[in-house]
């Protein structure tokens, strides 16, 4: 809560540089004036205003008057897009893989969210407002995912989007098979080691989940008397079978993604997204037919054997076939330039501008089941918008302001001010005795604390207790 307060203080200090009228920041109402608005739904609107009230977009039009208390941002000559949504991220996770079993559906990335990860702020500076935080790809069935908005400075519980449908990671290919390396002699191999084994591992999990559901149904109907165990591994898989949990399936080769979709056909659910899916262009009609989405890199390729057939035209071919395509990052660095990855989609095949923009906004929102609230600039949706100094598909563009639900989470001017403040704070802190290096004044040199054997060297941070 401290951070957020500090942030607003900064905002208020900086009203000058916004050419803003701020009376009270309490309602978070914002009026963005006179921008080129790339709505990602209804084309581009020139010289247009957007009013955000109580976190929602309430008006889009020309000559909107600011309600009392609203912050006004003059965006003349600037571009506004919906906040970018990254449908494949591991940012802000303190652990990514539970690499023990090949089915770890019981683990949840929600438990690992760390709101102090600086990648969040850097993503905001790249215009990203929301993300799907996925378990890694070590397992056939990985952990449960979390759909978040990057509300930097907020307590962790504010990050997950409450009404987003739950998701889970599946994975196939080299990582799951653990064949990208040769284990040292004597190490037992983990099942599965083949693509066909991976599919059978998944099938086995679904069959167990079906039996588990049966056991509960029997208990609920009174057929059996003893309450079955609550099985945290199988519960989420039952939810998949019931269509309540979205499957996001990591894979590269077309055949294995196809095999997963066939397995889904067999068990009667729809795979939500094929993640990476760098060969999905080979099976575009099969994907389209099932209404499955694809969440891909635009042009990243060749980093491993199973990405060797990747081509930058994948988004185009999928789009032409009517598949919902999103462009993701899977990387804190790439996350900051998803706008350029969308621009490249236009280059490779010639997808129209709005359709390309949708691949980083509305399409991922649909894939994550949050398109009712975000992903495009439309009245009634959350006020998740990004203000750019130039067209976002230009390499010369920069994010000026990133807003989530009417609240500014990144702003270049605020950032510049913060740098000065932090520099001042550093100066103050470095002068404190406690922060002085031993032997440079500030009292006698302190002897390193006694450590028990087995303690790791905590260097400057002390042991800080028992952890």
């Amino acid at each position, binding site marked *: 809560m401290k951070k957020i307060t500090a942030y607003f203080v900064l905002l208020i200090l900086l009203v000058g540089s916004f050419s803003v009228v701020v009376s009270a920041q309490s309602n978070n109402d914002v009026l963005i004036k006179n921008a080129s608005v790339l709505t990602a739904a209804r084309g581009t609107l020139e010289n247009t205003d957007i009013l955000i009230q109580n976190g929602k977009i309430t008006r889009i039009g020309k000559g909107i008057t600011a309600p009392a208390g609203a912050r006004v941002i003059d965006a003349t000559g600037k571009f506004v897009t919906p906040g970018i949504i990254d449908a494949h991220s591991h940012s802000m996770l303190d652990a990514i893989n539970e690499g023990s079993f090949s089915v770890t559906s019981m683990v949840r990335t929600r438990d690992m969210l760390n709101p102090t990860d600086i990648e969040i702020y850097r993503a905001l500076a790249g215009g990203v407002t929301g993300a799907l935080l996925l378990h890694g790809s070590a397992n056939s069935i990985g952990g449960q995912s979390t759909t978040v908005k990057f509300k930097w400075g907020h307590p962790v519980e504010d990050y997950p989007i409450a009404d987003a449908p739950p998701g889970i990671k599946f994975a196939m290919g080299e990582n799951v098979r653990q064949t990208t390396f040769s284990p040292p002699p004597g190490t037992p191999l983990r099942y599965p080691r083949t693509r066909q084994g991976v599919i059978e591992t998944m099938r086995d999990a679904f069959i167990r989940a079906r039996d588990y559901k049966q056991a509960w149904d029997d208990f609920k109907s009174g057929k059996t008397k003893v309450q079955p165990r609550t099985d945290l591994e199988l519960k989420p898989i039952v939810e998949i079978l019931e269509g309540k949990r979205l499957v996001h399936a990591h894979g590269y080769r077309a055949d294995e993604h196809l095999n997963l979709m066939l397995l889904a056909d067999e068990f009667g659910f729809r795979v939500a997204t094929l993640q990476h899916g760098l060969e999905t262009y080979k099976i*575009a009609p099969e994907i389209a037919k099932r209404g499955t989405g694809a969440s891909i890199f635009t042009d990243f390729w060749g980093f491993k054997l199973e990405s060797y057939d990747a081509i930058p035209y994948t988004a185009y071919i999928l789009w032409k076939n009517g598949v919902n395509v999103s462009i993701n990052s899977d990387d804190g660095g790439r996350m900051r330039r998803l706008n350029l990855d969308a621009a490249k989609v236009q280059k490779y095949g010639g997808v129209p501008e709005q359709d390309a923009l949708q691949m980083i906004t509305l399409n991922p929102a649909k894939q994550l089941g949050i398109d009712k609230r975000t992903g495009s600039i439309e009245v009634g949706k959350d006020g998740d918008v990004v203000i750019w100094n130039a067209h976002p598909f230009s390499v010369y563009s920069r994010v000026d302001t990133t807003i989530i639900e009417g609240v500014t989470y990144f702003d270049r001017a605020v950032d510049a001010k913060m740098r000065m403040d932090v520099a001042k704070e550093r100066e103050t802190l470095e002068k404190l005795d406690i922060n002085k290096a031993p032997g440079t004044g500030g009292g006698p040199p302190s002897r390193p604390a006694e450590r028990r054997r087995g303690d790791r060297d905590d260097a400057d941070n002390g042991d800080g207790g028992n952890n």
Partner: protein
Amino acid sequence: MNSQRTMHNAKLFLILVLSVIIGGQFSLVSAQNDGSQQNQTGRAGTFAIVGARIVTVSGATIENGTIVIQNGKIAAIGANVSVPAGAEKIDGKGMSVYPGMIDAGTNMGLAEITLAVNGSVDLTEVGTMNANTKAIKGINPHSAHINVTRVNGITSVLSAPAGGLMAGQAAIINLNGSTPDEMAVVREYALVINFPRIATGGGFGGGGFGGGAQPVDFNEAVKRRDTQVEELKKIFKSTTTYMRAKDAYAKDKTLPYPATDQKLEAFEPFMKGEKPIIFTAERERDIRGVAKFVSEMKVKGIIMGGQEAWKAADDLKKNNIPVIYTNVYSLPVRDDDDYDYLFTAPSKMAAAGLKFCISTGDTGPMVRDLPYHAGIAGAFGLSKEDALKSVTLYSAEILGLADKMGSLDVGKVANVVVADGDLLEARTNIKYMFINGRMIPLTSRHTELFDSFKDRK
């Protein structure tokens, strides 16, 4: 029965093991051998691009001009240039002509698939002292990365070996040719030295994995660095001794014949400052360490990496050390770093008057993103002109090729690209390209796979 089954199982196991071990290479070979991308070296001829915007980089942009390519060179440029008889005319209306881009920091051709396809990777030699190993002897002219890269307007790259202390010699190649010799611009351009750095583990490069990285004691790390620098200096010393013995023997054949040491021999031109040494270094203290080393050992130095080179601009300028900056796409390494720390570094180098160029630093597959690295630097303080120069003329200058490439000037090698927009923009398409005056087909592994699958129903 039993023994038969055992035999059978053993065989099966062997097959399984073999397929795991060599599976990668097999499919790789087949991937390389299919398709038409083999030996697509384009065609020679006389070409005239007429009515185009000509961005010479070295001089003023000609809004509506003609450029003539003949005998592999740029034969003429100007607003009123006549098209030679027999020249193939290209309508340049709505198009911009640029010099081909140069990436001065790749491993092009040395690693097809880096992860777990070891058979395709020739990046790192065993041992610390490999002054004699040369990238040009490992570059695969038929790597799929080459065509994929050049069709985005990149015509030349520096390809460097990696790893160890002295990684080996980097080559400068054009991205065209059926043999390494056909590709070579400078076969043995520079020696790559991974300059010893203060590696504490916890700080620079820390973060990211969320764990409490336990840093090595800093003073310990300084000592370790100093020891490694001393080791490096020892190589200089033994080379000097070796050369003296050889010289002495040359003058006086009665002396014992000094046995040939090809590693030291290979190191000689670099030690003497006849050829440059590329030092990899990122942070200020390490870069200053390089500058000190260069000054002390009197070698010709180039920094590769260069995240904080702007902070050490004084030392670098004093010692004429330019920077191949490979970090536009990198994440800042410290939490406290400004979000745009590595985006703004090129503009800070420019402001400090440092000689630098921008590189992807990529192994191969993503070298094609070079223009966007420069473009992003252009969004964060670097002028658009400098952004363009940082992947053309500046790269050529640092690679000692400014008289041959990097700009559109008469007499220079005809490495020329024709684009339908700003060369650095992500939506711009390359319409024509020429390497050594040969018109290059705009096909690659990617266009071929695209053509195969785009109409699949």
